[in-house]
């Protein structure tokens, strides 16, 4: 554990996942004399990057081209991404991925020893690098282990950041709780990078880990930095209802069927083709993720879904594939079901429902990962550069955290070189924060953390789920506003300083409510449907009025102030999203 006397650094990185570790290494590579701190509320290798399965996209094979990768990304994003950022992204992606290879990432290989690539949804050409089905795990561990060799990278593991220190118009560090001891300390720095990941836990059903509460998004939001494009949230159509564990698309491409409560392959009712015995590409269960998720909601409205302990669900049936095929082609699906959900898909149907997977929006940054607040940078899922626009393409997010993690690191070095010491008001801010946390810990409230969290999650699902309307969003906005007030009176029964996870859960809840607020209000104001943002009252894309990024600025005690920011178009004017031929 890092134990510097004064806790002062050149570059401070909040979040020790893929983006944060890549940034830390980039800082060292750019200037080995920089003093670097990585502050993370969990040990770095516990970060959620670890859960990513599929792969990471980068152009490496001779039949591929950077323009193809850029176009796939831009069209997949429904033209909501900044094309200059996408171009930088696809340009730098191969080198970043090769760098990870040189650092020892165990990429799956071709027979000749070159890196293997696989196909992925929305990508025209095979360009997804993978390390079996644990790509995120291997990338994170490679980055973490590589980072261990650099002594100037000091880690503050299990330190929970509660506030950004802003003085003199620039970000100068953070205040954080050392979980093991409960002490609250400032960690000062000339540049701060936020790479704390997304906020999927705002919703009840998600593939996201428990730690993904949008901490960094909220920290930036509270410091006056806008959150960009928060209305765009990606659903995956087949997650396990209780745990949110992802059941891969492969289960459907191998021939799995989605069945409603009557055992009927309901997708045929939603212009997704007709049921065939053998799976047909882009038809029925192999339709696009968003369409499948939308069909689920329609079935639910018709009362044809099943209802269980954890709400509505349908069945994914792979039993007819037989034990042999399941064991050889879908071993991981079976393992996940058996080990973590107590269901054997060889004998039983798998309950599934759409689950939140990824937040396209995040902290507003420019192409160099800089936020509007001087000295504050952001990368990874926490940030919105934006290359994911209205819908992120599968296998772009792992690459994104490398490319923009590295960019954030370089930008942070350049900024830190220009700065002097800490501002005058910092120590007063630290004292205030210490007192605030002390009050919070001493309890006295009456609202239950778990209760408020559940209300928030249910509200978000109802109001800002797969389909949204003015009315649903407005009622959720009101509810979130109430929850914001109630969270101030939260009951904390644990007054201990030592590893007080009730205290941090309460703070995480308040972070999530900030994210929820930004999502809801960004969604209310975007009166069009684009990518993952589907408004039933405004079903069409409206490029004339809404080819622009939403920026939500926090307002004290009220809804956020919405501003807009132009989308950068370089070479690919907005067009229609077309995937293959339309099925009759």
């Amino acid at each position, binding site marked *: 554990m890092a134990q510097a006397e004064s806790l002062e650094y050149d570059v401070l990185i909040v979040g020790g996942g893929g983006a944060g570790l890549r940034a830390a290494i980039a800082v060292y590579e750019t200037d080995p004399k920089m003093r670097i701190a990585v502050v993370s509320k969990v040990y770095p*290798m516990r970060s959620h990057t*670890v859960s990513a399965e599929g792969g990471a996209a980068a152009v490496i094979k001779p039949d591929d081209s950077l323009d193809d990768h850029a176009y796939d990304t831009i069209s997949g994003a429904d033209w909501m991404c900044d094309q200059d950022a996408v171009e930088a992204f696809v340009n730098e992606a191969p*080198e970043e991925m090769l760098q990870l290879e040189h650092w020892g990432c165990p990429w799956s290989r071709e027979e000749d020893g070159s890196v293997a690539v696989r196909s992925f949804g929305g990508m025209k050409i095979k360009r997804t690098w993978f390390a079996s089905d*644990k790509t995120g795990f291997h990338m994170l561990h490679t980055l973490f282990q590589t980072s261990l060799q650099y002594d100037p990278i000091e880690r503050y593991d299990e330190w929970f950041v509660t506030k950004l220190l802003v003085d003199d118009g620039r970000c100068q560090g953070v205040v954080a709780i050392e979980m093991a001891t409960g002490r609250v300390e400032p960690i000062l720095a000339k540049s701060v990078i936020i790479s704390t990941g997304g906020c999927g836990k705002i919703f009840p059903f998600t593939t996201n880990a428990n730690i993904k509460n949008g901490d960094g998004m909220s920290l930036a939001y509270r410091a006056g930095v806008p959150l960009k494009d928060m209305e765009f949230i990606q659903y995956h159509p087949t997650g396990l209802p*209780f745990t949110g564990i992802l059941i891969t698309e492969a289960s459907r491409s191998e021939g799995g069927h989605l069945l409603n409560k009557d055992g009927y392959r309901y997708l045929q009712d939603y212009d997704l083709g007709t049921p065939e015995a053998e799976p047909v590409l882009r038809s029925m269960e192999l339709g696009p993720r968003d369409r499948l998720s939308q069909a689920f909601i329609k079935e639910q409205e018709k009362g044809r879904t099943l209802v269980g302990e954890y709400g509505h669900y349908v069945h994914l049936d792979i039993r007819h594939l037989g034990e042999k095929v399941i064991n050889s082609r879908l071993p991981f699906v079976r393992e996940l079901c058996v080990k973590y959900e107590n269901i054997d898909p060889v004998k039983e149907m798998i309950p599934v429902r759409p689950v939140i997977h990824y937040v396209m929006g995040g902290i507003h940054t420019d192409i160099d990962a800089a936020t509007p607040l001087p000295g504050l940078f952001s990368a990874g899922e926490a940030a919105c550069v934006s290359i994911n626009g209205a819908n992120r393409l599968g296998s772009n997010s792992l690459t994104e955290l490398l490319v923009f993690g590295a960019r954030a690191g370089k930008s942070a070095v350049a900024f830190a070189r220009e700065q002097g010491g800490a501002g005058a008001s910092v120590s007063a801010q630290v004292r205030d924060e210490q007192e605030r946390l002390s009050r919070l810990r001493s309890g006295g409230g009456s609202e239950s953390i778990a209760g408020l969290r559940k209300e928030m999650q249910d509200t978000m699902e109802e109001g800002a789920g797969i389909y949204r309307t003015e009315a649903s969003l407005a009622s959720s906005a009101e509810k979130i506003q109430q929850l914001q007030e109630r969270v101030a009176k939260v009951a904390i029964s*644990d007054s201990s300083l030592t*590893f007080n996870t009730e205290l941090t859960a309460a703070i995480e809840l308040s972070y999530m409510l900030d994210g929820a607020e930004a999502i809801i209000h960004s969604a209310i104001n975007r009166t069009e449907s684009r990518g993952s943002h589907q408004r039933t009252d405004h079903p069409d894309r409206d490029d004339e009025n809404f080819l622009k990024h939403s920026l939500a600025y926090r307002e004290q005690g009220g809804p956020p102030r919405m501003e807009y920011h132009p989308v950068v178009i370089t070479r690919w004017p907005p067009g229609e999203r077309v995937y293959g031929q339309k099925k009759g």
Partner: protein
Amino acid sequence: MPTNITLEVLRYMPEDGGAPVFQEYEVPLRSDWVVLDALNHVKDHIDGTLSYRWSCRMGVCGSCGMMVNGEPTLTCAAFLESFAPGPIRVEPLAHFPVIRDLVVEGSDFMTKLKDVKPWVIRKEEKPLSEGEYRQTPEELADFKQYSMCINCMLCYSACPVYGLEPGFTGPAALALAQRYNLDNRDQGNEERMELLSNDEGIWSCTMVGECSEVCPKGVDPAGAIQRYKLAGAADWWKSLITRKSK
């Protein structure tokens, strides 16, 4: 089938000054619940002061290892039903100091991970412009198994040598060293061998083998250490002979 099951959870609150005590909680016995879900139920609805770590709930982040009925276990992969009718005894991972309740101190493990130099060591780095290092699927398979460690520390809890001798480098770290040694892109074999062929490295292992038994990812640290010993012994004799001949 009973509808409830009792958890006996070891509580340790350093500020109270006392020794750890077991506290009982009754939780619903549900077929899809694992021990971790039961702890979350306690935390959310019965006793907010219970402290433990968890995150992914799908066996890959490595946070939620605890002793369940005396065995090192990932609590996200341990169904309540398999312990019915109970009670289920939940304790912090053995062999580590306990910070509080089910939270153990992990910095010793983190130090050991770093000690084995788990990164690619090369005499000469190939420029990125020359592309990837070639590695056939067979060469990948040589070390792949050892790269699957999620750092959950169950193996340290199962290892009596680590329990008796906290200086012992331990299973996961040694397996990680082997992971890089066996990677054809790495050239750090000798450097790591020097580090690990001391008394607290590979030679402390007495091959109890429990590390490999409890590993939720099938890493087999015991095998890694055995292979390491064989290589270490070969090295030792080689260096004896080359020194004699000089």
